[in-house]
């Protein structure tokens, strides 16, 4: 009786399947994390640019939603976004919002509330600053 070979034969097929799924998922996770580490992307400072969407009416005024994209590899935390309603060179109204995290090469969404109707004015939005997480 060969004990060794019978041990292999005893291993149920499902065990090999489960182990295979585990191996593939582990390699995927380590690969994705390792790729990120090798690229050294996290060292590139965050580069936030904003995409403004059309304003819509709320109960007490207006809201302008935005999506913040991070072109850099580093993650930005506590990203402060400032939006200004401009009538030519004159600032009519200023609002700010703080976004918790914008991952490196990722995006996050938010919105700014205004009392004046943004559709008749120019909306200027820019990121003010961030914190390294």
């Amino acid at each position, binding site marked *: 009786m060969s004990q060794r070979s019978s041990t292999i034969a005893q291993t149920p097929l499902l065990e090999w399947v489960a182990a295979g799924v585990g*191996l593939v998922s582990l390699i995927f996770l380590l690969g994705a994390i390792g790729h990120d580490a090798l690229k050294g992307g996290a060292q590139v400072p965050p580069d936030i640019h904003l995409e403004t969407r059309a304003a819509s009416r709320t109960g007490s005024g207006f809201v302008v939603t935005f999506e913040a994209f991070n072109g850099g590899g580093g993650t930005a935390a506590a990203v402060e976004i400032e939006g200004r309603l401009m009538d030519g060179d004159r600032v009519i109204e200023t609002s700010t919002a703080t976004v918790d995290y914008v991952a490196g090469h990722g995006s996050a969404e938010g919105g700014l509330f205004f009392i004046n109707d943004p559709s008749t004015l120019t909306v200027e939005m820019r990121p003010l600053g961030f914190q390294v997480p």
Partner: protein
Amino acid sequence: MTSAQPVTSDRDYAIGLARAFGGAVIFGLPLLMTMEMWSLDMSIHPLRLGLFVVLNFVVLVVLSRFGGFEPTSTITEDVLDALGAYAVGILASALVLSLFGLLSQKMPLAEFAGMIAVQAIPTSFGAMLARKQLGSGDSDKTQEQQARSEGYAGQLFLMLAGALFLAFNVAPTEEVILIGFKMTPWHSLALIAVSLLILHAFVFALGFPGQEHAPAGYSPLRSFLVYTVPGYGIAVLASLYILWTFGRVDGAALETVAASTIVLAFPASIGAAIARLVV
């Protein structure tokens, strides 16, 4: 068949997997529902995270030698079991995180992988322990596994696994650092003494099932020096390692590092003490 090894069928293994899934969710939920864990992968250094994922795999293989979710006789089976536990842990994490609406298709791949990888550490650990916790208990632990976990090295390893698990459960939150700031040096010294006392009491004095019996002829002082002091040392090292992994020691003053390590070593030493009960 002369071996005590029962033949495992696909059906038995499927039941084992289902239990493992239950264990993964039970042990993983506190961290799956911790906010800091969702963004942890963004602040943690990717190489340190990768190292932790690999180290956790090694711990799982050794845990499988001592218990695991099905009886094993060869190291190949232990590796298969550890991979199986990781598969369950990763799937359970991905499932729960997506149910909570925390995973989105717009996420960069590295963030997606990192988020699941940090959660897969406690869930895969839970999957591995599920057999002991949710199965029929000690009776299906083989004599050999029993013997393996009773050697001195085996006991120290179990302490390490318990310390890592409990410390990991506590470490992601801001509180560890905050408590360290609140404590005076006297508080720290008192906490070290209490940690040692609890570790010693849990291992030797309180009648928990699976508790140690000091080898015959060992005085209380000798068992304190041979088991409790190394156990606390392991808890301190595990805590320091986890703080380093989470980037909590970078740029911190020595006193701050010492204070947070002592704070984290408190749950870690309880984890080390109760490891015998859960593994």
